[in-house]
Structures are given as structure tokens and as C-alpha cells.
């Protein structure tokens, strides 16, 4: 059943095409058998080989993944517990905290990045892997909180009172009653934190400036020579992973919808 007019279908197709042409070109050139990024001369897998042989790129990938995992775990933990504790705060305190929470969300990334740069500089903290992780945690926590907090507010307060009335310790209540109810929010928050960390550039750049630590974005930004299709190979692999995630998401949503319709 096509609800669309011819114009809207054409419009849609053109836009999708324009969006994907650079991405397709990226993948195509990753198989180029020459160094050129503009002229396709032949098919070759050499860049994929060179990708895994390149110490610098692999270091950058490792750093990106490591920082993303650690900061996601930490920020989800801190953010979730923080969101829960917010409900118990007095209204005025809660308002203040939520306002501060929104500062990194509302500010352009470069302002947040500079604030970390200044923080580490003022306290003479050596910039490197640790500062990058700290910065990532700091900008992820607010996003976790705004994702989890609404779920916390929607919780059934009666269940919690019931739990403690039945003799559960606060810890047990937390683990068995509260967390399962907000599980969806936690997972969503973690997903957001991970994506933001994995893709981050500006904040990581300033938070680790002057050290040898680089994530994928910093590596690309500071790459001055030797721009080869190895980068395309890296992109193609990332696109592959995302493609798989999308397909998975698509079929999962289809399944959910089918179940809903039943």
C-alpha cells in the first residue's frame, strides 16, 4: 500500500541517495588497488591487511573501544544511581542539580571541551588516557540521567514501600525492585553513552591534548600525511558493524510490532 505521491517518493530516493553516496564511495575505495582516494583503479584487499598491520591505527581503535567501555560502565552506574537518588532530594536541590545536569547537553561541545582543558590545566593534571576517560564519563552522565530519570519517576512507588515493609534492606529493594523497573531506561542510557563516547572528537581532543593518546577521531584529525585507503577500510568495517546493528534493530522492531498486533 503506497500512501505516497510520485514526488514524495522521488524526493525520498534522492535524499537517501545523496546521503549514502559518500558512504558507498568510502566502502568502494577501501577496495582500491592504488593509493588514490579519487580514482578507482582495481580491486584489492591490501588496505584491510595494512589496517591490521598499522600499529597507530590499531592503537587508536583500541583506545576508542577501551575508553567507550569504561566510560559507559562508569557513567551508566553513576547516572542511574544518581537518577534514583534525585527522587529523594528536596525539590529545590533537585531543580538545581537538573539544571547543572543540562549544562553539557545544552552547551556546544567545544565549550565543554575547553572546560575540561582548563580544569586539567589549572590543577596540573597530566593529560592522557585517564583524563580522556574522566571527560567522557563527565559528558555521558547527564545523558544517562535524562534517559533514566523519567523512568524512575514513572516507577510504582507503592512497590517500593511494599518491599521495605516486607523487610527488604534498601540494597535488596534497589536490586530486586527498582532496577528491573527502570531496566529499559538504563539500557537506553548505556547505549547513548557508548555511542557518544565512541564517536566523540572535540572533547577527547582537548582532554588529551599534548599526550600521545589518540582515539579514532583524533587520529583522523591529526593525520597529515599518509592519507590512504586504510582509513576507508576502517570506515568500511565500522559501517559493517553499524549495518548489522541496523538490520538487527529492524527485525527486532518488526517482531515487536507483529507481537503487538497479535
Amino acid at each position, binding site marked *: 500500500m503506497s500512501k505516497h505521491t510520485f514526488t514524495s517518493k522521488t524526493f525520498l530516493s534522492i535524499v537517501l541517495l545523496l546521503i549514502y553516496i559518500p558512504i558507498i564511495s568510502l566502502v568502494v575505495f577501501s577496495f582500491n588497488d592504488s593509493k588514490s582516494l579519487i580514482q578507482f583503479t582495481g580491486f584489492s584487499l591490501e588496505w584491510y591487511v595494512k589496517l591490521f598491520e598499522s600499529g597507530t591505527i590499531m592503537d587508536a581503535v583500541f583506545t576508542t573501544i577501551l575508553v567507550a567501555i569504561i566510560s559507559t560502565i562508569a557513567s551508566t552506574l553513576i547516572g542511574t544511581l544518581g537518577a534514583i537518588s534525585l527522587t529523594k532530594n528536596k525539590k529545590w536541590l533537585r531543580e538545581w542539580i537538573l539544571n547543572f545536569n543540562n549544562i553539557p547537553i545544552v552547551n556546544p561541545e567545544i565549550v565543554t571541551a575547553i572546560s575540561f582543558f582548563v580544569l*586539567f590545566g589549572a590543577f596540573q593534571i597530566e593529560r592522557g588516557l585517564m583524563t580522556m576517560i574522566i571527560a567522557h564519563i563527565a559528558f555521558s552522565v547527564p545523558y544517562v540521567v535524562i534517559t533514566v530519570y523519567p523512568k524512575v519517576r514513572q516507577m510504582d512507588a507503592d512497590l517500593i514501600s511494599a518491599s521495605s515493609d516486607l523487610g527488604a534492606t534498601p540494597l535488596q529493594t534497589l536490586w530486586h525492585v527498582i532496577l528491573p523497573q527502570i531496566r529499559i531506561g538504563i539500557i537506553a542510557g548505556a547505549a547513548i553513552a557508548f555511542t557518544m563516547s565512541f564517536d566523540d572528537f572535540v572533547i577527547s581532543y582537548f582532554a588529551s591534548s599534548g*599526550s600521545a593518546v589518540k582515539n579514532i577521531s583524533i587520529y583522523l584529525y591529526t593525520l597529515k600525511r599518509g592519507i590512504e585507503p586504510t582509513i576507508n577500510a576502517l570506515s568500511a568495517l565500522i559501517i559493517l558493524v553499524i549495518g548489522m546493528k541496523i538490520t538487527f534493530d529492524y527485525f527486532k522492531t518488526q517482531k515487536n510490532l507483529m507481537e503487538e498486533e497479535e
Partner: protein
Amino acid sequence: MKKIVLLIVLSLTLSVLASCEASDSIKLFMPTEYIDESLLEAFEEEYGIQVELIVFDSNEIAIPQIEDQSNAYDLVIPSDYAIEELAVKGLLDTIDWDRIDMTKDLLDPAITQLWPDCGCDPADFNVLNYSVPYFFGNVGILYDSTRVTLTQLEALGWDALNDIDEDVMFYDSTRDMIMVALKALYAGEVDINNPTDAQLAAAEAWLADTTRVSNITYASDEIFDAMLVSGSTQYAMAVSYSGDAVYLMSENDDLGYYVPASGSNVWLDAFVIPKNAENKDAAYDFINFMTSFDNMLLNTEYVGYTAPRTDVISDVITNETYPESSYRMTVRTNDSIFRYNTELKVKMAELWARVRAQN
């Protein structure tokens, strides 16, 4: 809960391990694309000391990093004027030349001519008190002879960069480009370490020239990819350091290197040991390793920059590794060296920001 705690502990351990430094190591802070990295591995094998290489794009960026005491570099390779600034600010150790194997008499006469080690006026800065030479050279125009001729360059000098309808690369470096502008406008009449405000204003106009015929891009190490392949050079002319030019000319026969008669800057990059270095003995070891005849020869062959030792220079020229015309540094009348000058530095930084903001 237990699983989460385990995961956290694991990740934290990983991160601590990742940021832990090897037991014996030195942090080497130097410009990009400036060393044969296989020498770092060779040093590690010979001395058992790991070298952590951290790079910077320009002296201007490096100096705040060194001033930031939380970065404890063991060795830095800045340029002469930056060494002066760091020394004046009390950030450097003096070099104990008794611990250096390479003796000062081995240094090329051009170096001792421009940076005299007479120690005559104690108030005057002597670069060799604080540093051991690494490479030296000048600044010129790397050109593609199929797109621009030497005759054109000889006629126009530095102005060729603005006046020829071609793609031109300006080096993304405050000092060097301001120097180019000053020399273009005033040749030997200007003191690049003490230009008048009028001269600086004229230099700014030269750099920001919106009526220029050429098409300017600001870049630095991109020069390597851009000029490497004969027939597909990205620029007809590029402001270049002598060493990069020497290297690229050996890869691409179309290229030539011209230093205008109106003058250029001769610079010296040298090893310094910051006061807050953690492993100074290893630093001296590394300096001796790199300034030995064999290693310096390997390094200069790889990078293309002119080595400071006379014997190494002779070897390169005799064996025709690189052509004498561009490899050997000759000091001409209008050439000058840079000195540290606080006010000038601030003025130049602001000038540069304005020029870049206008592109």
C-alpha cells in the same frame, strides 16, 4: 551485581595497565615526521630504554605544553628561538658537554657562525649552552618545475607565492610565514626580530592579501603527500623547510627548491633537557646515540634534513645521497636567525590569528 563489579574492576585494571609507563623509558617530544623511527627501536635494543614519542606541530604549540609542568618530558627538540624562550623562563637544564660524545668542533661552521659559542657576553643567549644540535636548515619555495619556472621565481622572489596564478601552499606556521612576508617586502632592510609596527602591518596585508592571484591553502605535513608524485602535485609552489624539500626532490624529479635572494630564516633544531625531566641520564644516552656518526647519518638519509656534523654532511654529499645545492646550508647576506622576544611573540600570534580568520 557481582558481574558488574567484576567487569568494572577488570576495566579499571586494564586502564591502569594501559596508562602505566614501562620501567625505564623516556618521553621524547619533537616535531612530526622528523625522525627515523627504526632508530628508536634500535635505541631500545641497545640501551633497554623505551622511547615514548609525542609529537607537536609547531614550537608555538609545544611551548605551552612544556610550560605545563604536569607534562614531564625527558627530551624536547625545539627550534633555536624556542630554546631561548624556554631557557629564559628557567625551564631548561644547561647541557653538560662533558657528557656529550659529539664535540663542538665537529659542528658545521654555518652553525658556529650563526650561533656563536664564544660565551663573550654572558648576558647574551648562547644556544649551545642549553642544547645539542639535531638538524638545521632554512626556509624556501619547493616548486614543481613543470608548473612554475626557476626564471619566474628568480624574478619575483617570495612574491611569486602571491603573484602567479597557481595553487600555492602556505606553511601553517606563524613565524615562518611572517618572516616570508617581511623578507618579501623588505629583504635585508628589516630586522625580523624587531620589526616596526608599520612593517608588521604590511606583512599582515601581504599574508591576508585578498587581491592575490594565487590560490592559497594552509597546511604543514600534508606537503609530503601533496608534492610526492610527479605529474599530480597538488601545488605549484609550497613554502617548505629545506629538509622536506630535499626529501621530496629525491622522490619527485620535477621538483626544485629555491631560496629567494631577499633572504630567509636559517634555523637550528636541537635537543634540550627540561628541568623537570624524570630520566635525565637516559636523555643523555639518547642524545649520544642520535648524534653518533652512524646514527646521525641514518637519520639524515631518512629524513632529508641537514645534519649538524661536518663529517656526516661530507659523507652525504660525497656519496650523492642528496644534492649539495639544497643539502648544504650556506648563509647569505639577507639570511637571519630568530630570537626570542616576548612582545613580538604576542603581536605575531595575534597577527596570525587575524590572517587565518580572513583566510
